[in-house]
């Protein structure tokens, strides 16, 4: 059976424009609330300093089927 998927490693967006900064602002808007009610370890800082590379599974022809 022919495997149609292959893995592509993506480290970071190749470019950050003002348009993308606007998306960053939208993300800030979504994160200005009180932290949720849990008493564990928040991993946001760990993710920022040790980002795990994302793996995209891509079909032949380039369309992303799983992210």
């Amino acid at each position, binding site marked *: 059976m022919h495997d149609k998927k292959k893995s592509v490693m993506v480290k970071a967006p190749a470019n950050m424009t*003002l348009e*993308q900064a606007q998306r960053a*602002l939208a993300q800030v808007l979504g994160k200005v*609330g*009180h932290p949720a009610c849990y008493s564990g370890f*928040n991993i946001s800082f760990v993710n920022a300093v040790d980002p795990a590379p994302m793996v995209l599974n891509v079909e032949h022809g380039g369309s992303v089927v799983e992210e």
Partner: protein
Amino acid sequence: MQFTPQRLGPGAIYLRALDGFFRSNGDLIRVAEIEPQILWTKGTGKGSQPGGSPAERRSLATLPQRVLTHGVGYPVGGTICDQTEHVAEFRRWNAELGVAWTSEHLSIMHVPRENGAARQSCGFLMPPIQTEAAVRLAARNIAERRAALGLPFAFETGVNYFALRDGEMQDGEFFAAVAEEADCGILLDLTNLWINEKNGRATIREILTRLPLERVWEVHLAGAELERGYWVDAHSREIDAELIALTAEIIPSFPNLGAIIFELAPDRVASFGECAYLKEMETLNRLWGRVSTASAETQTGQRPSRRVGADAGPALTPERWERAIAERMLPRPIRFASDALAVALTLLDEERFLLYGHLAGSFRSGALAELLGNTIRLLLLALGKQGLEELIGRYTAATPPAAFPTDEAIEFRRYMDAHPLAVDGLDDVLRFEAALIEAAANNAVVRVELSRGIDELLTNLAEGRLPGKGTRRATVLEIGVDPAPWIRVA
């Protein structure tokens, strides 16, 4: 107790990132439990009060689920318990969302300061001391909160990483005493109790033998994880199979159960995945199928009235416990001058306070990573991981935690202004991101002047390069959020 909750069914904590998911899965998720404060914004001005958006409330009112609210940030276990500042906004949310009952944590968040100075967040939900005085305090807080909100009220049984001290009531005895003294409901967080049991406190079965089971209106379930050798309430993954089996066994004994809620932390949503989430909701639906339909009245009144125990004595009061929390959780510059009036701590207490400090620190650094992502990235590139962690450590050791992440980010900017680093681009990136926060938090148009083009700066950071000296080109940006986020070169 007059209130009997409606049987609403299985549900989950609502997160903005899951809005579409909630709307398209109304059959599996029948209750949306909203934590209003995580959707509120607190302005950056001195004395500003947090509040939500009317548009978001209107949108939430169209969810296909029945809605409950669950308070965060204003717990009812301590001597400092807000009954005014957040109440009007909370009432507004309850009214517009048609909430049948509401809940908050039987925990402590704010601690006193020297000479009666303004209350101070200790940065984490801390457990109360379990004494008769603490029962009376919590019952008074709950009665006031219930009256202020005008709704039936349940307290959440919290996680407690400390060991039981001599003179404290057993966990089940304490929860039962608070519920009966306050004549309120219980939000039984089985994950919290399971974690407590795994860490050496009372077992869930022991607790249930002491609880007035007819007061259990709601159950919370979530995934736990190990951190530094302790089980912690991380809301990070699927519910443990052992806990699901135990829940299936005990859930028929709650005659007034109105809802069973799955919790997932916002910082874990991306890695958890939609399929895993649906699987957890299927589990909750199966558990809900085991909820007893027997009348509550057949089971109430069978328990004897509680006997009020002797007070634990002057060495173990809520006030002394909160001073101990302040002593260990706040940075040295704002602690009390002396810990002579605090509860005496054991070596075990000291060890557990280190865990609490570690967890609280993760929320502070997490807030900076989320709201000042480019600043943190630049500092990581310039200082390396160890250098960045040391900088964050110096910052948290010098400044107290803030309840809202916007305040944390603005405080970090002040700290960096007072302790400047020779890193090219840092001033511009920090100024830019502080302006984003100001615009978002204050719903205002903010103008910010930078010494270089923001595109080049952000592109360098995104590609993992230090900005370098670059071309100096004064740039003025205007940033706003109404009606949608926008940034333009002025």
